[in-house]
């Protein structure tokens, strides 16, 4: 089960050294550009920019491409849906589902869009530690008046980092319980519905129990969800401002052309 998609890759590149906030802003900004872009030429430019960043990061392209793989089916589905459902000039006249040239164009564009979004996200996670991403999001959210909703930015950040921390344990538990139930004669092949219950119920029970233990440990260490500091306090460097400037210039230029 070693899933390498969206994992961090150790490194000391320019991209690795940037403040997570800079990178988050960049991904948001680039996503907007990707979503707005209607022409293949523009897409090509965005892909080249992605390749340039990947080159700077030192992360292998094949590693990033792997992040898209789990969603390939979804992307393929979008492509097919557009191909057959868009009205226009038929490529081959078929009685029920007619592929059209307009559909082909739109499908290709949408698939590229999704793929590119995933790739930019993968580049972010490959060059930024999960805890740093959480930290960055927390700092970006801090000025928002979240306390009116009953949460603080610190709460949200803690939730995120706990999810990142305990997701592998959760999957491990699921695997253990599955093995235990199989050993007791559970037949997953013929009775999937019962099989799922037999795994889900103990899994939920165990997770709730662990969650209680985690809570106790956190409370014992004075967690209260209010103002916290961080071991790695974020500080914007000259490099970050420079990167944002480059990004801003690129975006403006891109939108102007």
């Amino acid at each position, binding site marked *: 089960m070693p899933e390498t998609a969206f994992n961090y890759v150790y490194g000391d590149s320019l991209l690795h050294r940037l403040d997570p906030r800079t990178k988050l802003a960049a991904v948001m900004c680039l996503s907007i550009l990707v979503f707005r872009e209607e022409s293949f030429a523009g897409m090509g430019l965005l892909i080249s920019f992605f390749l340039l960043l990947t080159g700077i990061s030192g992360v292998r392209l094949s590693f990033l491409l792997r992040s898209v793989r789990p969603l390939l089916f979804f992307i393929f589905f979008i492509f097919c849906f557009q191909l057959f459902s868009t009205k226009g000039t038929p490529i081959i006249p078929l009685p029920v589902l007619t592929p059209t040239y307009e559909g082909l164009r739109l499908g290709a564009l949408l698939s590229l869009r999704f793929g590119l979004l995933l790739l930019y996200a993968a580049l972010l996670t490959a060059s930024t530690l999960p805890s740093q991403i959480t930290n960055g999001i927390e700092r970006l959210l801090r000025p928002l008046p979240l306390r009116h909703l009953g949460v603080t930015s610190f709460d949200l950040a803690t939730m995120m980092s706990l999810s990142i921390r305990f997701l592998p344990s959760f999957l491990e538990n699921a695997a253990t319980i599955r093995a235990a139930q199989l050993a007791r004669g559970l037949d997953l092949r013929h009775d999937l519905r019962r099989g799922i219950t037999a795994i889900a119920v103990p899994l939920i029970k165990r997770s709730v129990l662990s969650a209680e233990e985690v809570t106790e440990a956190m409370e014992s260490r004075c967690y209260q969800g209010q103002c916290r*500091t961080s071991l790695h306090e974020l500080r914007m460097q000259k490099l970050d401002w420079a990167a944002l400037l480059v990004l801003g210039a690129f975006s403006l230029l891109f939108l102007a052309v």
Partner: protein
Amino acid sequence: MIRIEDLSYDFPDGAQGLKQINLKIERGEFLGIVGRNGSGKSTLVRHLNGLLKPTEGKVSINGMDTADPSNLLKIRQTVGMVFQNPYTQFVGTTLEEDVAFGPENLALPPEEIRERVDRALEVVGLENFKNHSPKTLSGGQSQCAAIASALAMKSECIVFDEISSMLDSRSREQVREIIRKLRKKVRTIVYVTHRLEEVLYADRVIIMDRGEIVREGSPKTVFKASDPGKFGLELPPVVELLNSLEARGFALDWARLASIENLAEEIWESGWKI
């Protein structure tokens, strides 16, 4: 520093957890709490930092009542706690982030957090594992990490709740070695276990059974006077040896018996007068 008066606790389902506990823990003391599973020892220590509130009676830490929510933060800074399961108390994504979690909650400046983290990791000997994730640490190492996390809080007292029961014998020895070291550094230690040999060198030991304190005193008196089997506990071989030696008129100084090696030496030096 810790004072427990007439403490009783009922679980939410109505079952009685603790009955009329009276206990004082002095500053600098190493207190061992032993008892079989379900004897109430973990329930008792969860009252020491306000994780549980007394149904009846009162628990105060340096004069602060644990039932008063406004005291809780200060109480948890005073009494740290290390739990049984090394994995569920590891909340960071890397070792140093986990150790930093407590000091971060205290909103300390980053430089001080860094210093506390480094020092705590040094004490438990994990300074070279800073960036490791919980997945790449062994059970023993994770438990040492939990100890480091408690140390980074710089609390006056640390409660160890069955910290060795999920470990293999080698990691258990590793953890015990750290506890021995800590005895000099942390001011007060409360050590919960069902293995009597782990509290042989405590200043005082209490045995709990069915939510009550049934024996109390120095390890020597408790292990000699009471029949631990009655409370579902097993005398460690070394104590049985000491007891039978003493029954033959050969008294050894328990305080000097910090390890099996010391005991062997003591017997050797006695010149076989038995």
